[in-house]
């Protein structure tokens, strides 16, 4: 059967291609339309923008809002907070830039119809904590998706982008992307003047705690398949802080959020005996990281560290004492809404295990590691910052452009800009969208050209897993075991085991070392080679195959960065067993990598951390 001859190819020509229809992509689309009124703005999403991305369920809080209108916070203070949480290593210019714009984003959301809770006494938004406000956010994503639909020239749902395309007329310049339609299997080529990657970060690169059906209940969406990094790093764009994986302390198994419990309701956590273990372990933490232990609030990784030590000492389970704080019907509703708006799975845990939070405490646990750029972590692409306040070596012409011309990023894609969350990611999308409009206008007639030979080669590669399966089936009678191919799930499970056992997953209590990393790299290299032998049974499995590709490439970046940084900067996220201390003298710096597609080599070096705010 003519597998390729019967396959349709669709070409889309556009000015600005936005890859990923989540918060970052929706913000980029909105802003690009505002400034580029006559430009074509194409949004492409592997799922359906109505509910795609990390905010599919909804959210119960907006975690990045200054409240400048009420004098509640200043952007500089937000930079200090995020810097403190990341143990000093953030792009202060990028964070300042988001913090100064984010209030406007939130006000837009309110205008669009997002119900934001108000404080009955002050009339201000109801604060969950210093930087967070409470929302009735079940339809957060549908509301934002509506704005994106009103802004885009066209929205392509169910198209998975697998590779970016480079300009054949000029080195290091973007020209578009390729992918395939997840429903009808057609091949899609996008030719664009500017590309904004706002795809997902990485879940499922480390083995999750639940490995049966429960593997679906990761903290970060299982469809965050590291495409932000898998697409971008292969162009040779510089990436930073890929070692900075995040571990979350959340409600056990369901991974329900803890923010509203700690901050708004004032709940406390404790060990199995009711003790406040964080306070008890303070001196120990200080011995590990020095002055950083005095940062207020205590950095996320250090709180994790205290919990881990407590668990290792056999004093678990760790519990969130929910009972005393639910002393009214309203508070009970807040507690439940916190889950129902954004992690229904935790409500299911309660209902299935007969846990009424008014009567029983709930277990907390540290999660498996994730790599992303928008939370209490900041892995991602090295990007140009705001022209008015970024240091000279942090900017090169267009805000949020990577080191590849015309390739922009927003949300989880961008490194160094921690603590964005939903509103900040949308804001970063807006920043990138505007900058991309400027870039396209500056291009004038100089349109990038795609390389047809490269496209033909990629088409072959993209659909190869279907061919591998069809051909390889002839060798066996039936079943999932074949000598010539593995399924995408097989590949994923091998990846997760490698990362878990060698790169600091839960099975080693997040500890790794140079010998472990080197051994992991050997195995990861063989897995990367085996990617050519993935067998996809159908188009859905083909999508899984390419999600695996993006995950494997991202994992290699994570591993190499972890090897490069010879210190333990974020105990509680991960530990270098061979360099257990924090070392500001050598490592108060960003780690940066560049993958050279021509030679297949990785180049790792350091980039300076400038503190532009005192």
């Amino acid at each position, binding site marked *: 059967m003519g597998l390729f001859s019967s396959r349709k190819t669709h070409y889309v020509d556009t000015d600005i291609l936005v890859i990923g229809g989540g918060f970052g992509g929706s913000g980029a689309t909105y802003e690009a339309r505002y400034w580029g009124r006559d430009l074509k703005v194409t949004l492409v999403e592997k799922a*359906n923008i*109505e509910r795609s991305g990390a905010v599919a369920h909804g959210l119960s809080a907006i975690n990045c809002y200054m409240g400048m209108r009420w004098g509640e916070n200043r952007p500089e203070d937000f930079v200090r907070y995020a810097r403190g949480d990341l143990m000093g290593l953030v792009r202060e210019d990028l964070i300042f830039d988001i913090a100064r714009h984010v209030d406007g984003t939130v006000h837009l959301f309110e205008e669009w119809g997002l119900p934001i809770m108000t404080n009955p006494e002050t009339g201000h938004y109801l604060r969950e904590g210093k930087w967070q406000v409470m929302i009735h956010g079940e339809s957060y994503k549908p509301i934002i998706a509506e704005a994106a639909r009103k802004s885009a020239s066209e929205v392509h749902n169910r198209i998975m982008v697998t590779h970016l395309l480079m300009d054949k007329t000029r080195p290091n310049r973007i020209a578009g992307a390729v992918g395939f*339609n*997840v*429903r*009808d299997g057609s091949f899609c080529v996008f030719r664009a003047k500017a590309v904004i990657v706002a795809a997902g970060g990485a879940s499922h690169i480390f083995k999750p705690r639940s490995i049966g059906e429960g593997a679906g209940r990761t903290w970060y969406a299982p469809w965050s398949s590291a495409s932000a990094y898998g697409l971008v790093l292969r162009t040779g764009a510089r990436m930073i802080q890929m070692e900075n994986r995040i571990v979350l302390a959340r409600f056990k198994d369901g991974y329900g959020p803890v923010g509203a419990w700690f901050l708004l309701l004032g709940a406390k956590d404790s060990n199995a005996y009711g003790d406040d273990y964080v306070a008890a372990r303070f001196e120990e933490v200080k011995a590990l990281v020095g002055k950083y232990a005095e940062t207020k609030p205590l950095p996320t990784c250090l709180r994790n560290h205290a919990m881990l030590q407590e668990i290792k000492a056999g004093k678990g389970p760790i519990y969130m004492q929910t009972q005393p704080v639910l002393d009214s019907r309203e508070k009970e509703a807040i507690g439940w809404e916190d889950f129902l708006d954004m992690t229904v799975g935790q409500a299911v845990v309660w209902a299935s295990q007969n846990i009424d939070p008014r009567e029983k405490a709930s277990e907390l646990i540290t999660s498996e590691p994730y790599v992303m750029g928008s939370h209490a972590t900041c892995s991602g692409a090295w990007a140009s910052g705001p022209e008015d306040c970024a240091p000279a070596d942090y900017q090169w012409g267009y805000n949020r452009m990577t080191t590849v011309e015309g390739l922009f990023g927003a949300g989880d894609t961008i490194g160094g800009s921690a603590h964005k969350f939903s509103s900040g990611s949308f804001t970063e999308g807006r920043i990138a969208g505007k900058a991309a409009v400027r870039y396209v206008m500056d291009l004038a007639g100089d349109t990038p050209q795609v390389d047809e030979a490269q496209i033909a080669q990629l088409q072959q590669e993209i659909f190869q897993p279907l061919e591998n399966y069809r051909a390889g089936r002839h060798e066996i009678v039936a079943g999932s075991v074949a000598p010539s191919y593995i399924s995408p799930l097989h590949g994923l499970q091998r990846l997760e085991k490698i990362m878990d056992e060698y790169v600091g997953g839960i099975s080693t209590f997040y500890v790794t070392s140079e010998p472990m990393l080197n051994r992991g790299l050997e195995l990861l290299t063989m897995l990367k080679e085996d990617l050519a032998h993935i067998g996809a049974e159908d*188009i859905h499995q083909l999508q899984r195959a390419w999600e695996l590709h993006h995950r494997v490439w991202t994992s290699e970046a994570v591993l190499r960065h972890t090897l490069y940084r010879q210190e333990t900067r974020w105990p509680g996220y991960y530990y270098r067993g061979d360099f257990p201390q924090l070392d500001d003298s050598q490592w108060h710096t960003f780690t940066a990598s560049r993958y050279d597609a021509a030679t297949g080599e990785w180049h790792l070096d350091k980039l300076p951390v400038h503190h532009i705010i005192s």
Partner: protein
Amino acid sequence: MFTTNPFTPLAAFISPALMQGYILLMIAAVAAGTAFDLLHDNKARFFLQDRQRSRALAVRQLHAPDIAAIAIRTAVHDVATFGEFCNQQRRISHALMFYGFVLYVITTLVMVFAFPAAAHTPAALPLLWNLGILLTLIGGYWFFFLLRVNVVHDGHSPWRLVRADLFIVALLGSVSFALLYGLVAATENGTAIKVVAGIYIGFTTLLCVSVPWSKFAHMFYKPVAAFQRRIEEADGSSDLPAPTAKRSERCPHSHT
């Protein structure tokens, strides 16, 4: 030709008794097939137990008048007008297939049992017979090519047939060849009549004997399920939250 009894030419080589016997056999096959589907693997038992479990969770007691009212509402809204469908195209195509098929079956029964070899059949009967066929074919082919969910939403080619297609393919085959037979029956071509009649009977037999494996029986189950659903909402045993919007406003926005 649309006003003459199409079965009269058939009576030349198949006796009316045989035709009637065949129809009774097909009705029996459908009944037996449905009964088999219900009884094997304890399916009926499961749904009866499920109903008991649900009644035990009832919060409000329903009395005979309430139940009767619910039954009428089910018949009028869910069955007669296919009101459960939120997608209007699917709703209309199902209505066409249903009413078309029912009209065709009733007129077939009347013509075969009351006017099997009659010289003179009231013209209304064959007219309604053909109308029933046309409605079924319009609804059916529309559904087959443009509305089947695996084709429209799951990326299948319309030519890719799966087991779920057994009912629609057998139905379309039977009714398409009924139409063709009706046209051919008006000619004098004995061979053509026999061949087309043979295929018509073949598809009709397939339609009726494949009930244990096809979606045919769902025509009977759906109204029962709709009734059950209304009962559960009324007596409070449903584990769904109580709706506040009117039934007419309950369809969520489609994002397909």
